């Protein structure tokens, strides 16, 4: 079977960063399921992994890709609940291959009729944003949600989920094209923060009350003006620092506004609360199946063109999510 391999760390945009090779098909361990992969999701952390700039160093060679969709090919001896032929999605390392062994605890059944490409590319981003908006912020219908970096993977998921949860969504991004994607995902209001002042616009849009929840995956110079736009009892969700610098916020701000600056680390939540974390994705799959959420896939690349996909990610041309298909 074919698999994508990275044999050496280096620039993610070089064409020989990864190769496609024939390697032996995996055999399931007792608690594993081997999935015949239809599609695999790749994201910005994969770009960092190729350069050895991520939170951990993978052993070489390694296969990128952190999520997949496909059909169960074989199951290990101890696996219950899955059988060959079942449609599934899974989360694991090394998903960019035609066959991948996944622990059964990281698989979810995919209802009939759900698009394999959409299903492959949504669980990572949506799991983060759902945990943030639901467990952390407890976002309520009618509340105002402001999303920074709204056209990125987790940002667009937050816009979509905010809409689904009945919030009024204010999307902030840096270009008209990105904001158009946010509008399509259901944003009610748009702020172009290259040309508009986030704080001034957010206060205008809320009639001076300030916003209830802020979703911030970018940090840097965007955090402070956003935080100053919090309303009474507001929740500021700290998701990441994609824009570069780690911002600092004065203690005066939560004191005056009675708001909360809340850390959101989805991986840490999954480690500590595997059950709840698993159930979140089960709920998201059900929402996907009935069309309550609408993940945005910006590019679908066949396995052999994966270098192009990495280039698009590395050059930040991607809105939403990129999916690799095996043709199976």
């Amino acid at each position, binding site marked *: 079977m074919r698999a994508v391999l990275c044999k050496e760390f280096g620039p993610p945009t070089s064409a020989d960063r990864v190769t496609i090779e024939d390697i032996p098909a995996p055999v399931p361990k007792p608690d594993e399921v081997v999935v015949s992969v239809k599609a695999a999701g790749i994201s910005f952390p994969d770009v960092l992994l190729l350069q050895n700039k991520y939170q951990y160093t993978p052993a070489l060679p390694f296969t990128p890709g952190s999520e997949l969709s496909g059909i169960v090919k074989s199951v290990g001896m101890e696996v219950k609940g899955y059988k060959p032929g079942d449609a599934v999605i899974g989360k694991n390392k090394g998903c960019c291959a035609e066959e991948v062994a996944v622990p059964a605890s990281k698989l979810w059944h995919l209802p009939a009729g759900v698009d394999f490409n959409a299903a492959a590319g949504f669980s990572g981003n949506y799991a983060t944003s759902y945990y943030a908006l639901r467990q952390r912020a407890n976002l309520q219908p009618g509340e105002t949600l402001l999303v920074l970096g709204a056209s990125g993977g987790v940002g667009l998921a937050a816009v979509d989920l905010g809409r689904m949860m009945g919030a009024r969504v204010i999307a902030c991004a840096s270009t008209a094209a990105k904001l158009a994607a946010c509008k399509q995902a259901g944003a009610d209001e748009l702020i172009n923060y290259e040309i508009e002042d986030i704080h001034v616009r957010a206060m205008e849009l809320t009639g001076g009350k300030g916003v209830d929840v802020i979703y911030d995956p970018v940090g840097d110079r965007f955090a402070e003006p956003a935080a100053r736009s919090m309303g009474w009892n507001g929740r500021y969700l700290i998701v990441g620092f994609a824009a570069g610098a780690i911002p600092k916020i004065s203690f*005066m701000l939560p004191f005056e506004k009675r708001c909360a600056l809340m850390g959101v680390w989805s991986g840490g939540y999954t480690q500590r609360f595997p059950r709840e974390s698993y159930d979140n994705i089960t709920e998201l799959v059900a929402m996907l199946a009935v069309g309550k959420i609408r993940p945005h896939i910006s590019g679908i690349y066949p396995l052999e063109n994966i270098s192009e996909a990495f280039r698009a990610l590395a050059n930040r041309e991607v809105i939403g999510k990129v999916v690799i298909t095996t043709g199976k």
Partner: protein
Amino acid sequence: MRAVLCRRYGPPDSLVLEDMPSPKPGRGEVVISMRAVGVSQANVLIVADNHPNKRALPFIPGGEAAGLIKEIGEGVTAFKPGDAVIGAGKDGGCAEEVLASVDRLYLLPEGMDFTQIVGAGSYATSLHALRDVARVKPGETVLILGAAGGVGLAAVDLAKQMGARVIACASSPEKLDLCRQYGADELINYDGEDLRGAIKKAGGDKGLDVVIDPVGGKYADPAVRGMGWGGRYVIIGFAGGFVPDLPLNLPLLKGCAVMGMSLHRLAQHDPQAAKALRADVIRLLAEGKIRPHICATYPLEHTADAMNDLRLRKVLGKVVVVAGGA
């Protein structure tokens, strides 16, 4: 009647005692003949013009006043002259007669000691912080900065009653001993040792579930770093003199929340909640469930001495200013 006035911002010694005309209650107002009034570090900072709640000059400093109603204004039906009450004045409470609106006035049970109920004022802040903001659960670890101060000691007392394991931080053995008497399980003298290491050790493998911080300043950073997964850090004030900044990667990695509160703002945004809170504290005191520690009482003409004690960090628990033979 006599009142303490702040005519220029500065240290407590710049306050003056003056004779003023007695206030006249307007519609929905009463005049309280003050028996006891609380002063806090916040009052000291406001007099120094070094607090987020700015006051225009001249003003009367001080917190809530307890005493007997002297006179009622038009439309006041729930209170009558002679009633024992506690309430926030339109101005501060350091005056023999305090004009107050009935919206923020509470009837006291028969026989309640005026000095005690004023001394219990900090319990409202700490109760709100622990119960409503941090939502402390039994078995959780709660670290309290400035634990021998008014808010801090109330937090030690209440957190113990909520079943928490309490770590008290203060600046002297004498202060820590008082925290121990109020039930603190572990004591940290933060002026004497490696605070970051001591907090980490006291938090154990899990880290701190809750931090109550009325101090800010240089103690905030080691306290934030001691937080555990899902922790709640409650900012209550800045008695430490400066307002710290929070680097946002700290709450991210710990999955914790840094929150804030002020009763002043609560009363503006949610007057019903503020009222219920005050009623809770009166009830807790009446039932003997809380025991405010009053380290000194000063007569009105010595209000500056009370504030100097606070400024010099000499106060354990509360200082109360009294008048009219309370």
